[in-house]
């Protein structure tokens, strides 16, 4: 490990002498946009797949037999108590030893899905448990089929209750996805790494990229509240 601990100035230059150079960043802006697109794709892919995993696990955890419940608990605890970086290293470097070889972007999507699935399971389970038993019994009494009860009486109101928690988890997922750049996936952070290694304008590159992540986070947030207004515009049950 090489480091010089001096925060001060070595050559007697003024500290404000640094020339910011944003030109190489904006010259390669198309690469950043392509990276941002991959980040968006990875995030939405993991959101959709992760929600499917989470709904399945939440059902398994509330209604499944004991061994299934135990397995799902182990999955959730394992994912929630280890860093995402280690999870993606495991998926990208260790799984090939078992004969599962994934390309960087597929490994990234897998890791993000597995990760968000664990967090979302707990959120969705809380939503399902918030549904009053009487509602389900009323559905049975009205002669609704099992699938109709599940869809209309359990999942839809549960999703409405947990929507804010779930969507902030999704925004956090999008920010976490920057970590996939370490396995040479082609997301926004990785595009930054490329430009940085060619131009050495590291601070400028990461400043612009951080701003782009902030814009993405605000955009996701705006999109989620628009969806909320559209999807949950019916009155609350009393």
């Amino acid at each position, binding site marked *: 490990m090489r480091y010089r601990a001096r*925060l001060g*100035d070595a050559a007697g230059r003024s500290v404000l002498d640094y020339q910011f150079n944003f030109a190489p960043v904006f010259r390669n802006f198309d690469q950043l946009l392509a990276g941002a697109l991959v980040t968006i794709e990875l995030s939405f892919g993991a959101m959709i797949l992760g929600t499917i995993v989470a709904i399945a696990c939440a059902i398994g955890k509330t209604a499944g037999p004991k061994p299934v419940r135990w397995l799902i608990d182990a999955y959730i*605890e394992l994912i929630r*108590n280890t860093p*995402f*970086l*280690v*999870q993606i290293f495991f998926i990208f470097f*260790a799984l090939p030893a078992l004969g599962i070889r994934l390309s960087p972007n597929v490994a990234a999507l897998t890791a993000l899905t597995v990760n968000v699935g664990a967090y979302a399971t707990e959120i969705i389970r809380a939503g399902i448990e918030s549904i009053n038993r009487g509602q389900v019994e009323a559905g049975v009494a009205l002669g609704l089929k099992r699938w109709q009860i599940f869809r209309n009486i359990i999942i839809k109101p549960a999703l409405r209750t947990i929507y804010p928690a779930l969507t902030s988890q999704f925004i956090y997922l999008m920010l976490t996805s920057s970590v996939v750049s*370490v396995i040479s996936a082609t997301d926004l952070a990785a595009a930054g790494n490329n430009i940085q290694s060619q131009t050495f304008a590291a601070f400028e590159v990461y400043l612009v990229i951080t701003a782009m992540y902030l814009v993405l986070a605000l955009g996701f947030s705006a999109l989620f509240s628009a969806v909320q207004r559209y999807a949950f515009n019916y009155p609350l049950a009393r």
Partner: protein
Amino acid sequence: MIRPFGINEFWFIVMAVQWTLALSAVAFAGGALGGLAVALARVSPAAPLRYAALGFIRLFQGTPLLMQLFLVFFGLNIFGSGVNPWVAAAIALTLHASAFLGEIWRGCIEAVPKGQSEAAWALGLRYYDRMKSIVLPQAAKIAVAPTVGFLVQLIKGTSLASIIGFVELTRAGQIINNATFDPFTVFGLVAALYFILCWPLSILARRMEARFAVATRR
């Protein structure tokens, strides 16, 4: 040359836990001070302070921790001739923790009934005494469980310091993996060590939350 994964490699990784713990401790201590300041600013009567704290929180909650680490690392490089990854990681994680703890603790302060600080004000207590003796002790009780929960997130977050070259648990794992090329064992061990650090804290946070929920049930 590839060498087998032996007892030396095992201990190299296990001993790296101390650096993960040290970085977590520094970031948590710094984040606690910063978080208190941010939380107090966030509930301050002065509007500019409130907005500044809100902006700080939004900025750090709306950008990836990895980018925060990079910006501090390369930002410090601009001002000096080279920077210790220790310093960069500690500063970035402290700022990160300040924003998150600030937002958590703001909620806790606001959860203390308004009548408490109004009564203290009516009794002639000034801002400092009102906060120190009335509001913060009550908020602290509410804050313990979510704070422990955030500590887990912070310990996991320190793994990203490996990317800027700070040798902690994850980086130690990478170093050994490059030498032994036994990723299954190496990253399995690294994950197990993080789990041993974080799981008890997660359980503790959950228990305290449950106990608190019982204590405040009406």
